[in-house]
């Protein structure tokens, strides 16, 4: 009895040590960023001026147009990517599940493939494609979203797949159709509402990924938030780090919100 008790206590201690170390590992750089952005390099001591600047939207827009532009592009990109990803994946995956179960493996493989391709390789491959995109659709930063859709495929696929597994899509859609629903209505009124959690988590993951993307945007010379931050870092290191910290925290909040939504749905 007492050995079991010590055993359990030991395990708990180990658990907390691991959690503690991990937290320290993640928090130290964040703390470093915070410390750096509140340092007054000229007069010594502490200052909150970078953070007040960041919150003051008109001033940021005026003094750091690149940052404002990058932020706007990243927001537009996040929205565009999520919409295209959902329009592409939800019907495809539902259809594969209902009508072409033999293709499940293939679709999964294709969707997970981007994980194995380094961003730089992706860019090399995408360059000729984007020559056409630019030719047909123009130079807008938002078209980067098409490449981002490919980047987010693995994460979105996993979330949506979990959602589709949790409901009996086949029976539900057959029931709806026997009651007179068209395919479009089945999709919109039956499948989508029951995939809400999965759609939300796929969207959140995509947003988080898009907001943190630098390589592809930089190599294609498009200005998103990360690229703007990088450029800003060359002239104003502290503000750039402040922006970096803010965007990190934002991404954390988004991911926390996601896990919260998922849990609430289950109960």
């Amino acid at each position, binding site marked *: 009895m007492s050995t079991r008790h010590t055993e359990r206590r030991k395990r708990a201690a180990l658990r907390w040590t691991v959690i503690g170390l991990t937290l320290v590992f993640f928090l130290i750089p964040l703390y470093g960023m915070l410390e750096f952005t509140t340092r007054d390099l000229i007069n010594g001591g502490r200052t909150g001026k970078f953070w007040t600047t960041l919150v003051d939207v008109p001033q940021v827009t005026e003094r750091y147009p690149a940052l404002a532009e990058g932020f706007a592009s990243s927001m537009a990109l996040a929205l565009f990517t999520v919409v295209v990803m959902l329009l592409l994946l939800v019907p495809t995956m539902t259809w594969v599940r209902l009508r072409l179960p033999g293709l499940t493996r293939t679709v999964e493989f294709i969707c997970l493939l981007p994980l194995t391709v380094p961003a730089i390789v992706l860019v090399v491959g995408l360059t000729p494609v984007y020559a056409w995109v630019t030719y047909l659709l123009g130079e807008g930063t938002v078209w980067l979203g098409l490449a981002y859709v490919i980047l987010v495929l693995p994460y979105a696929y996993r979330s949506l797949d979990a959602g589709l597994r949790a*409901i*009996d899509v086949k*029976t*539900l859609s*057959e*029931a*709806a*159709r*026997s*009651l*007179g*629903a*068209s395919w479009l*209505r089945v999709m919109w009124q*039956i499948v989508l*509402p*029951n995939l*809400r959690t999965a759609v939300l988590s796929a969207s959140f993951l995509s947003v988080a990924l898009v907001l943190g993307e630098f390589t592809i945007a930089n190599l294609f010379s498009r200005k998103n938030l990360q690229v703007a931050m990088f450029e800003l870092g060359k002239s104003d290191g502290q503000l750039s780090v402040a922006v970096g910290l803010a965007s990190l925290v934002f991404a954390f909040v988004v991911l926390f919100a996601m896990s919260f939504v998922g849990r609430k749905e289950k109960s």
Partner: protein
Amino acid sequence: MTATPSPAASRGTEVRLTDLTRVYAGNVRALDGFTLHIAPGEFVALLGPSGCGKTTALRLLAGLEDADGGTIEVGGRDVTNVPTSKRDMGMVFQAYSLFPHMTARQNVEFGLQLRKQDKATRHGRAADMLDLVGLSKQADRYAHQMSGGQQQRVALARALAIEPQVLLLDEPLSALDAKVRSQLRDEIRRIQLEVGTTTLFVTHDQEEALAVADRVGVMNAGRLEQLASPAQLYKNPATPFVADFVGLTNRLHCRVAGGVAQVLGGAVPLLAGSAGDGLAIVLVRPEGVTIAPVGSGGSGGAGGAAATVVSASFLGASGKIVARLESSEGVGDLVSVQVDNTDVTAYAPGQRVLLAPRGDAALAVSAT
């Protein structure tokens, strides 16, 4: 008792499935020239072992799968190529199929909404339907707040709400436990009689099929073996498969002569379609055999075949004795005999008994 949607007489639609064929990948013929005619308002059950094609037949009628041959007519209209959503079929599935994000009421209203009925009509109709299945109080519950039986009732209400031409029941009871199953089974029959909708019920449970249907179709290997009333099916099986599949059957070696099988020291009249003169196997029901302890002078005195009791089981409402016939050559046939539950204790393994046929007509097949 409740507001009946419309008089039964006007509800029934005739269904004709003609020569249906359905071939799956790998050249598996799930249906192979399947023909079935359901009269208006009739309740037909399709019964058969798994893989016999009964579910495929129902899915073809629902339009959930396409026929590779043959025609489907509903109410005189050829619907072979009409999509599911335009066939007007109410369907209840084996798997729970309520839309999880809607309440019971919303589920029932879904089909009415698609038919562009106004809110008041929908509400009234949904209330009537939920009343019909006895779930008025659960109208605002979600699927996960209801038991399996309740979910299937709502599914039934949802299917009936659209006043379908045909009601299709695809093993709706098989996910439920025994007590709820028999309760809901009787209720389905009551409701079907009340609304008068032509119904096709697919099941692998013979008790279920025999209990609810006007006629039962026994299927085997993609074809209809026999379509008859439950009593007919039981008393006069048309084929050995039906005799074997419906109810319990003893397979006893016998000699056939002049339309009568000599078995268990007595004579059993044979049904049409039985094997001709010579050695054969006669299919005798457990209740078609009498049993008596040796020397009791029972079982009509004279006849009887000597056997040794192998087991005696108490089955609640009845009892079952299994005995092995004494045979001069090799091992004798095993015979199960149905007895009154009070008689079970009169027999013990190893005891010698006399078995005799009651004389009910049976089917004989050639012994090879």
